[in-house]
């Protein structure tokens, strides 16, 4: 499969802060990739570099095989939007749509207008009059209507209520089915996104933690429940990414492919094996142990 995005040892610093450190990832053509990470993990920085809107410090970032910054051949094939795009606040939505229609070659104005009606938006509304959720909807529908070969949506559902979010995901998936293209969606709400994603790219503190297909990720870890001693014995030679021990319940999350042999082996030691959802895995891989600090708050 063609790689639409490929970065090699990509670095970006803001002053002394390392926003991205040696990020090497690739994103396949016609995939829907979830760019997942905590706040400040580097998701937006990565997307902005890929969109040619931020200069990198080191490494390589190729989109459609070329550097994106100031490269119209690349930029004309992509759209990058985010929840709070800085349009002129006094513009009517129809004027903003005019801009999209004028510049994006594949922009489907009819589809955009249908989506406007679906989400109860009208062209006469001013951008500044939109709530955060409505602004997110508007930016989402604009980006989707561009039908760009690479569509990058940065926190597209921020501020949307749960009903609208579900509609948005459904529309995204349906439109992707009708017009396959490469879509990158950044979010920290993986649970809702999970069902539409084909790949997940998890970054934390500017480093890539996980970059794989959702199916592979579902198989990449499992949870064992049992007594502390049984868990300790089983997990001694394995990569444990989360462990909790108590008198009532103890468990551990093992970062290893969950095969039949693994399940048999765990059962023999009196442990219960259960799958780990991708969202849980992301949480376990990125959370920092702050329980002690939490207790100090009171």
């Amino acid at each position: 499969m063609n790689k639409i995005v490929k970065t090699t040892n990509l670095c970006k610093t803001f002053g002394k802060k390392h926003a991205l450190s040696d990020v090497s990832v690739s994103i396949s053509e016609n995939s829907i990739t979830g760019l997942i990470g905590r706040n400040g993990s580097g998701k937006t920085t990565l997307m902005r570099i890929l969109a040619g809107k931020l200069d990198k410090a080191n490494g390589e970032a190729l989109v459609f095989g070329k550097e994106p910054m100031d490269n119209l051949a690349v930029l004309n094939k992509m759209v990058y939007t985010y929840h709070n795009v800085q349009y002129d606040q006094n513009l009517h939505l129809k004027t903003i749509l005019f801009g999209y229609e004028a510049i994006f070659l594949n922009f489907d104005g009819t589809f955009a207008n249908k989506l406007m009606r679906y989400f109860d938006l009208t062209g006469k509304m001013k951008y500044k009059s939109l709530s955060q959720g409505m602004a997110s909807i508007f930016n989402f529908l604009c980006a989707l209507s561009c039908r760009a070969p690479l569509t990058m949506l940065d926190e597209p559902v921020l501020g949307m209520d749960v009903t609208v979010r579900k509609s948005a995901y459904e529309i995204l998936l349906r439109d992707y089915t009708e017009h396959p293209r490469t879509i990158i969606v950044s979010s920290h709400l993986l649970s809702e996104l999970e069902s539409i994603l084909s790949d997940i790219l998890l970054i934390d503190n500017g480093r890539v933690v996980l970059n794989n297909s959702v199916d592979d990720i579902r198989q990449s870890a499992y949870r064992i429940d049992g007594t502390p001693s049984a868990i300790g014995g089983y997990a001694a030679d394995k990569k444990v990414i989360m462990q909790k021990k108590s008198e009532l319940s103890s468990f551990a999350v093992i970062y290893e492919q969950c095969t039949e042999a693994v399940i048999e082996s765990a059962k023999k030691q009196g442990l219960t094996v259960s799958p780990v959802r991708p969202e849980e895995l992301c949480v376990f891989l990125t959370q920092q142990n702050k329980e002690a600090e939490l207790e100090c708050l009171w």
Partner: protein
Amino acid sequence: MFMVKGEYANIKNLLRVRLKTNAKSFKWILILLGLFVFVPFVGTIVGILQSNHVRFYNIGDFSLTIFFGIGLRYFVLMLMYRSTNDKLSVYPQTNNSRFISSLLYNFIEVFALAAFVLATYLIRYIIVWVLTLFMDNVHFALDFDLSFIIVGFFVYVAYSLLIVATIELIGVILRKWTYYAIVGFTAALSWMIANFSTVIENLRLRISFPSNVLAFFIEESSLINFFIKAIVLLVAITAIAVVINRYTVYYKNQGRSLNKGVVLGCIVVAIAVMVVLPYIFFVRPIYMTQTTGTVTEGAIIPVDDFFSGFEEIRIDISHIPNGSNIEVRVENREVVAEVVTGARFFSNTHMNISGAESLRNIQGDTLIISYRPSFFQANGIMLADFADSQLIANLDGNVLFVDYVIENVQVVFLPIWGMARQFDFFNDRNIFRTPIIGISAGGNITPNVWLRVE
């Protein structure tokens, strides 16, 4: 040379978007400017219709106001280049297409502003012209000259585009070499201020560079040479700005805090553009007028030929014994004229009498009063030319009362393209305010009323 494949189309599309998205705000700018022009103008019209004495209406050169406005607006836009363009950042663009589309948009706006200035002039002119059809005493101080209106428009556009292009070049330099640019512009500003003090000392003195550079334009008297210079310089400045911008990383400071150096540099350049340059551009010798009536003692006794162009009043003084004195009084008048708007130099006294000493110890039977039209003027315009001024003289006992009688005229001073006066092409036309002959700086006025006894 300046563009890669697809950039031309991208510039065109970005320009379309800029025109569409800025249309509303620009429309409001024009509406506000229109109010700024036409609300006072309504007052002028009401004044003309209702006035029962001499009035001078200085409507002012709106083109100069807008010219300074253009300088200010595009300087501010230059400072806001990033935030302005961020509003379009969702659309695909390159550093080059972003800058060129922005530059072209500014040029189009300047052209539209010049057209707006012209339109406001023509509308006001037509309204006053209609009034002149019904009111004989309404006059234009300046003539309507179609060739001047058209050529002046392009001169104005050329000056405006040069100012905008220069500001854009400054902006590009600031973005490319921020710290070096700040140092450079600060040094240039200091040097200009040092030279500027010389300008203040002598208004006519043109100091070397940079005023010589400016003189290259503002003292060019040939229209053709001016347009050649303007086009060449405009292309050169624009090309330099585009090339520098091409090698500037637009997103290099993204995510960093506000660059204080840039802010400082902008302030320095702002001072240069808003304070110093206008002075260098527009400082002109000021023609002074005397503000009080005077009776000049000991003036040179005129010879007969001198009075050939003078009107004359003869008064029989045979009943006054030789050796007596006649006292001269310029009658105390009420205000005979008002300047409605924008008056800088105005005098309601319009007489300077010479030869009063000849009325002491008189030897003769006839008092001859020779006179020319009064000095009745406002803003450098001789209102007396329109007012058909006539001298009246009454001898009451041995007191001579003299005064001018002035027709009730309404003179409308409606100038445009004030910066186009440098060209020979417009010489000898009544389209600019011209200095009053005979009145020199320092307050001395050549007498216009001469008294003698024969």
